[in-house]
């Protein structure tokens, strides 16, 4: 079997992942694209393990390790995404501009009444599920976008 087949498939899969990471706005879709890239790397590892007939099976064992790391990454990433959603009511990565330099501070829909202290407020409010909900109920906080309503 030619080595070209798996490596070309891996290259195409990797570039699809690059496109997804750069072009998607939903944070969960970005995580999915990262998974595509990790799978491309796994395919390369397996293919070169078979190619060099590694006695220690370094490539395949490293593939298993990469899968485990990807699982850990997706768990932590989803926890962070849920935390962002809880605080900001959106996971749109285009609108999370609190750390931007050349824009005004605060997210577009983030509901930062205090203006530029969005990053500090995020840490302070990270433990609170209640605040955004309470203030949203009181009309002082960000209204959830209409398509996000349950």
């Amino acid at each position, binding site marked *: 079997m030619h080595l070209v087949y798996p490596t070309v498939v891996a290259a195409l899969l990797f570039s699809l992942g690059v496109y997804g990471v750069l072009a998607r706005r939903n944070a969960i879709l970005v995580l999915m694209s990262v998974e595509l890239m990790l799978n491309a790397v796994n395919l390369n590892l397996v293919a070169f393990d078979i190619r060099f007939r590694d006695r220690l099976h370094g490539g395949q064992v490293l593939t298993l390790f990469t899968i485990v790391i990807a699982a850990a990454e*997706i*768990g932590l990433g989803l926890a962070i995404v849920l935390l962002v959603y809880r605080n900001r009511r959106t996971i749109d990565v285009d609108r999370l501009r609190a750390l931007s330099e050349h824009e005004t501070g605060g997210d577009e829909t983030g509901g930062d009444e205090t203006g530029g202290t969005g990053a500090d407020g995020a840490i302070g409010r990270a433990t609170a599920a209640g605040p955004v909900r309470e*203030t949203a109920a009181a009309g002082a906080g960000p209204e959830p976008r209409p398509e996000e309503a349950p």
Partner: protein
Amino acid sequence: MNGKEIVFALLGVVTVGAGFMVVTTRQLVHAALWLVLSFGALAGGYLVLTAEFVAWVQVLIYVGAVVVLLLFGIMLTRAPIGESADLDSGNRWVAAAVAAATAAVLVTVMVMGFGDTRMPLRAGGGSADELGAGVFRTWVLPFEVLSVLLLASLVGAIVLSRTDIGAAPQRRPGRSARPGPGGGAARPRRTVRPGSGAGADAGTRPGGAARPEDGAGAETGPGGDEEGG
């Protein structure tokens, strides 16, 4: 082009096509389901490459766990079920150009570098027997380190997901007395007390006014998404 190459090429086409659908579909849930197809076809590719154990681990972990976790994330963030128009960013064409350039460079390098390289496919090279011996003889130290990493990520995900622990929230200055449990409902009423001044109160409000007491945050979570991570 023998039989193995044909099978692998077909599986590769399915993998790349499903991956393309993942990054271009307009429905979030469908993206996760296309991801299942892509990973499944890739597992078939591993089987053709005689990496059996990696293929089954791929099916178990990716198709079984990661995609389910992603679907949970989609549900917990209350994503729209139908089509949503704004899944793609405005810089989509720049992203497409970058991805096309990446694909061109990588494919060119791979074809030029390994265009005439053949690899032997012998059955049994990636069985659970061989890989188990490899993991627990040669690679046992990375294996243990990896289990520590998994434990750390587990603890981290729990800490990130829980709402009643974590960093100390910002408190309003000069008001250190905390109400007892159960006082959370009466608390926003007290923030508009005329003694504290309306301007200062509004400025410090997002950090401190809605601080959840331990009992107050538990029942307000719709769907119980605190356990999501």
